[in-house]
């Protein structure tokens, strides 16, 4: 079956090599990449082939100057995450047939990462975040003697297998909406790894970790866009782990932050009137006595007012709000 692949090429050297002779396997001009352009290739592959099969076929028999990271070809090593039709995916797990749109598949390095060459991006931002959550066990004392394991229930280990399944491919970070606008955000992979240690009964620093994660750039900077859940090829569902961390952090008493205040204000408004009072949400999230913080939000408020986007000044309850309150009572917990 014929597939058409449009590949985002990038080569800062932009050097042209000797063109191959016509009729030889490598069509001219091979290795003739200007700094950035899309290049279209046609490959003949079985119906069930994946995007990586196409890239390897191109690299091996059409254009050896195409740079692409890959190793295992079976969604284990995490090398080949890239943008496929505008979203991060593993090339080895994406069927060409499913990703053919308007007769072609577009493949490129994710714009959210610095690019090195062709489909090879610089993963440093990703690994920096990984390191930032101290991704190792801080052993609970006493550590058992060298011939003895920690005694923990299997369920506690199984609880973590979802996060341990992470292959660090970076697909979640590549498509994370928050990371795109806030490079300080730890991002979905690092936070899922953070949960892997917070949730480990053998770790001694659960509370300290939750404290660190509650700071700016941490768990509360996620905007629930669900891109990470959708893009993760291994079902790690980082957002689910972030939500678990939030609950644990609040339960551990880390409530003096904009994230908790925002959640509280949100819930309180819904409990009170059955819907969101956007007028009070921002001030309450910032902290009512945080004068500097309040002043910082002022320009946004003015812009919103100018654009006619300011919420109504009088906030009315919805009919039947008592029943909403009953739900809160029934659910219990922090907001009853």
């Amino acid at each position, binding site marked *: 079956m014929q597939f058409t692949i449009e590949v985002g090429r990038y080569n800062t050297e932009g050097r042209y090599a000797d063109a191959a002779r016509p009729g030889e396997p490598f069509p001219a001009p091979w290795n003739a990449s200007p700094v950035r352009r899309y290049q279209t290739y046609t490959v003949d592959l079985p119906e069930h082939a994946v995007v990586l099969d196409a890239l390897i076929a191109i690299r091996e028999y059409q254009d050896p*100057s195409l740079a692409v*990271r890959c*190793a295992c*070809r079976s969604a284990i*090593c995490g090398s080949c995450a890239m943008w496929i039709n505008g979203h991060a995916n593993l090339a080895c797990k994406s069927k060409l047939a499913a990703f053919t749109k308007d007769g072609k598949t577009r493949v490129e390095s994710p714009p959210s990462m610095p690019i090195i060459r062709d489909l090879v991006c610089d993963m440093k931002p990703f690994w920096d975040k990984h390191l930032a959550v101290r991704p190792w066990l801080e052993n609970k004392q006493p550590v058992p003697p060298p011939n003895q*394991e920690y005694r923990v229930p299997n369920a506690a280990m199984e609880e973590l*297998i979802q996060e341990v399944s992470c292959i660090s491919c970076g697909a979640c970070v590549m498509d994370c909406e928050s990371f795109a606008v806030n490079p300080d955000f730890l991002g979905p992979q690092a936070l899922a790894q953070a949960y892997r240690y917070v949730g480990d009964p053998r770790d001694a620093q659960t509370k300290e970790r939750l404290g660190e994660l509650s700071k700016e750039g941490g768990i509360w900077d996620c905007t629930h866009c669900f891109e990470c859940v959708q893009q993760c090829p291994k079902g790690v569902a980082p957002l689910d782990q972030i939500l678990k961390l939030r609950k644990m952090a609040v339960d551990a008493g880390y409530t003096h932050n904009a994230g908790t205040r925002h959640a509280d204000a949100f819930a309180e408004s819904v409990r009170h009137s059955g819907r969101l009072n956007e007028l009070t949400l921002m001030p309450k999230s910032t902290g009512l006595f945080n004068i500097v913080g309040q002043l910082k939000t002022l320009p946004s408020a003015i812009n919103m007012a100018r654009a006619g986007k300011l919420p109504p000044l009088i906030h009315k309850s919805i009919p039947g709000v008592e029943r909403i309150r009953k739900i809160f009572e029934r659910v219990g917990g922090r907001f009853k």
Partner: protein
Amino acid sequence: MIADHDVIVLGAGLAGMRAALEAARLGADVAIVTKVHPIRSHSSAAQGGINAAIGENDSWESHAFDTVKGSDYLADQDAVEVMCREAPQDIIEFEHMGVIFYRNDDGKLGTRAFGGASQARTYFVGDITGQALLVTLYDQILKAGVKVYEEWFATKLYMDEGACRGAVALEMVTGELHLLRAKAVIVASGGLGRLYEPSTNALICTGDGYSLAYRAGAPLMDMAMVQYHPTTLAGSGFLMTEAARGEGAYLLNSLGERFMKKYAPTKMELAARDVTSRAEATEIAEGRGIDGNVLLDLRHLGPDVILKKLPQIHEMALDYLDIDMIKEPVPVRPGMHYQMGGVRTDVEGATAIAGLYAAGEVACVSVHGGNRLGANSLLDTIIFGRRSGRASAGYAKGTLPSSGGEELLRSEQQRLEGLLARPYTGETCAGLRLELATMMDAKVGLYRSDAGLHEALEALRGFRKRYENVAVGDKSRIFNQALTFVLELGYLLDCGEAIIRDALVRKESRGAHTHIDYPERNDRDWLKHTVLTLRRDGEEPEISHVPVTITRWQPEVRTY
């Protein structure tokens, strides 16, 4: 650039990182050189588990005996003893580092059954054991602050007055060549699966370390012993873990029979890998296969076991064959998987060259002999990784810093520039590799013959000639993979020649080496290792033999 360290480790899989961690703990200035990010290393693809005799009713002697029997008595029993004695403590250490091993109801480590083992002693994390160990170890490397030269491709070892004193490596991102000088070098660069097509191995398993060490003068041992795994996925050749059979899966032929009853009536599907692979090949050859495959049937295990304990292979069969193993059996066949032979080392990882160590798949201690047991390779990496890390750090303490080497850096620079300048003649790197790998699978695979091996050696000579004409299809400096592929193909050719030459001399059948002209094991003449030493480039290597170390288990007839 020229940088100096006490110890450099080539490779960042389990063996390499374990070695680096140990050397760092002992105070050595250690750096890892790896052509891919450590997490991309092929150790992550190990699925089933890691063996140790931890259980109350188990003993290191039992583990060692199973290993020796599995090796078809070619393993050195003193080395096997070291590995099996130290296994429990090393696995517990990984548990303390944070690996989420499967537990029993009492919260202690739990096991699963594996091939060739007299009892269940395989510890595991679902079917991602290698990945779970690798990530944990990588994070320990981060914690210890070990320097990692990431995406640096080693092109040559630096030899000075007969000792190994560093390596030259290409920094992929800049295209610059550097000299890394060190008092000791540990080669832990993994296997050579790309030499065979198909193979379960990743595209990065190109035999770099075998060739680098061999060309530096270190002998290779028992290279003929290439393992075919009994269950690789039809088509793609991806690994379907032995843990599937450990959990109780059946192997069926086209008649729906559990054919292993004919070949291994006691152990059935859990016979050693060489035995099981040959049984499958026989079924297929005698017309009881299905399109060149047999069937791996997991249906009776039920969705709970499959989804909880074998989720990854369930996903792979779905992704690459559209087969849901909960409902349908999976077509599998024997496929090249592992190299038992390698750079000859002692139990400290030391090679015959001063300052040069090796660990993991690239090394041959020998604990696997003619056939490796499943779940012994992860064990090999962490035990001998640790030991080579310790030994190299000790050696480095008593050694003066490495110096010089500028000449080598220049000559390597010229060599690479020469490669880049080669004109395009129509010979492609990928095409030549595929021909080589297809030939190896056909003639130096599961079955060998004198005629076939001679043809293979002749073919290899031809490939070597054609290799001189392979052009580098990319002239850029930055991330020039076309250049590293050509270098890798050179490594593969060295490995292929070593395997063929070793197979040619071994006139018997033992373990993975099944010689149709000599179908029986011959302990009188062949209970010995074959050692290949390079004399000079282009000349035939020197072939010698060393006895197998036998401590307590005399060779017996091997049945399962």
